[in-house]
């Protein structure tokens, strides 16, 4: 594989960039693999990469219905953070933060990781108390957290609304300085390129039609490009998990919902942090191109539509304007929607299933992108060793049965309420 560097850039510039190698191949599916990963998104690609890198399992195929990186890894708001209170979420995410920091070097691909910091705004004394508690929990788990008062927040983000008579005055905020953003497409492409180089077959335009299960064991998968045998199959299909689960006669603690995001026209640099509104659900950052990247609530009812509805967008942007009034002057450049696995406690599932050889990675709710490396790493471990790693032990499927829920926000089972 051609190494990407300033020298390769100069060398290829001399030949008008016409001689770059393909970043990954377009193989015909083989009859059998050791492991088949269904879903060529960030998590699936990362899983294949770590299977090859950490576990030396390279006879692996990734099956993708569309094109790799064309799902939620291609349309998120790119936020990376580990500001969780519960141990399982905090330790898992912080492990991921380490992988993020090294990712560009590991993958020889610039994922433009930008640890610019995230601020969760607080709008009441009570909220300041809960943030202090969460911040303390984070620090006990070795995660950086800083509690900011109103004046400290004002110094960092003076463009927020600090006027006196507003409905949701800013009391302060909780900052995780090491959080940030990354170039989402590069993450998918970087993992794909390295996985391909280590021998993983990336098979695109290949839809899963059914599964071959007998005597409680998985034997393979039926696809639009023929049957593929495998003793181990990993499901990594956020948004379509319920559709594939039905083919396996499984009913999961997941509902499929639509989440919208949008970007404004590009403007000069104004915001160098990720900021979230504490009195509703709205988050914002500024991309390197200058666009304000914004998101918020789900559309609020089960959906596979992959396009958003106006009332939610209007609601979300109303919150945005309440928080940062200058946004009202900006024109909207693009809005889009993608479908999410909303799990019943807001936390994901990375686990084995009752079918031997079938592994499940789903339920990422709002937070799939930041989890990409840690999810791939732990899922690869779970598949390769046929047992969960301690990092994903809390993300078990049977926690809904045993009552060990991981309800970070304390919302209960109404997945559409945020």
């Amino acid at each position: 594989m051609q190494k990407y560097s300033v020298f390769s850039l100069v060398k290829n510039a001399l030949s008008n960039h016409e001689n770059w190698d393909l970043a990954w191949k377009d193989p015909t599916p083989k009859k059998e693999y050791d492991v088949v990963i269904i879903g060529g998104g960030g998590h699936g690609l990362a899983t294949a990469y770590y299977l090859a890198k950490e576990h030396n399992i390279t006879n692996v195929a990734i099956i993708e219905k569309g094109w790799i990186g064309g799902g939620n890894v291609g349309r998120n708001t790119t936020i990376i953070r580990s500001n969780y209170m519960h141990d399982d979420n905090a330790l898992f995410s912080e492990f991921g933060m380490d992988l993020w920091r090294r990712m560009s070097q590991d993958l020889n691909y610039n994922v433009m990781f930008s640890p610019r910091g995230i601020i969760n705004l607080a709008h009441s004394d009570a909220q300041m108390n809960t943030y202090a508690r969460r911040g303390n929990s984070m620090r006990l788990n070795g995660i950086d957290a800083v509690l900011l008062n109103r004046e400290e927040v004002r110094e960092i983000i003076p463009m927020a609304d600090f006027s006196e008579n507003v409905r949701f005055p800013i009391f302060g905020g909780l900052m995780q300085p090491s959080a940030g953003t990354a170039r989402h497409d590069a993450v998918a492409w970087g993992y794909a390129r390295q996985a391909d180089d280590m021998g993983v077959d990336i098979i695109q335009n290949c839809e899963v039609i059914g599964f071959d299960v007998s005597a409680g064991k998985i034997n393979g998968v039926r696809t639009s490009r023929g049957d593929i045998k495998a003793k181990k199959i990993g499901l990594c299909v956020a948004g379509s998990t319920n559709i594939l689960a039905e083919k396996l006669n499984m009913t999961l603690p997941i509902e499929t919902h639509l989440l919208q995001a949008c970007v404004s026209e590009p403007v000069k640099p104004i915001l160098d942090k990720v900021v979230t509104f504490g009195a509703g659900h709205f988050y914002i950052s500024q991309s390197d191109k200058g666009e304000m990247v914004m998101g918020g609530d789900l559309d609020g009812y089960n959906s596979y539509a992959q396009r958003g509805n106006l009332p939610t967008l209007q609601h979300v942007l109303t919150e945005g304007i309440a928080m940062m009034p200058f946004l009202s002057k900006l024109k909207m450049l693009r809005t889009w929607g993608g479908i999410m696995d909303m799990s019943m406690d807001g936390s994901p599932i990375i686990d084995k299933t009752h079918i031997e050889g079938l592994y499940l990675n789903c339920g990422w709710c709002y937070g799939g992108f930041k989890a990409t490396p840690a999810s791939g790493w732990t899922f690869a471990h779970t598949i390769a060793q046929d047992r969960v790693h301690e990092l994903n032990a809390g993300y078990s499927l049977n926690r809904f049965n045993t009552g060990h829920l991981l309800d970070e926000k304390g919302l209960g089972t109404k997945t559409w309420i945020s």
Partner: protein
Amino acid sequence: MLHIKCPHCGMRSQNEFSYGGDATVKRPELGKEISDQDWDNFVYNRKSLRGKHWELWQHLSGCRQWIKVQRDTSTHEIFKTLKANEDIS
């Protein structure tokens, strides 16, 4: 925007309603011995499929009644609405 025909008030915009989830989920009978699995199925497990979906909505900014709506989860086409006490046929 969705337009939902409330069986009590007629056609209204989505803004007047709030969502209540899968309408086919039934609470296990009170006092009856049930398994953990039955309880799981009631509280957590959902089919949430693409296509026709019976769901509950409340006409919150209208008559405040709960209603049942059959909607396609990929096209948002609404086929039928029922009062809460009417059975899904």
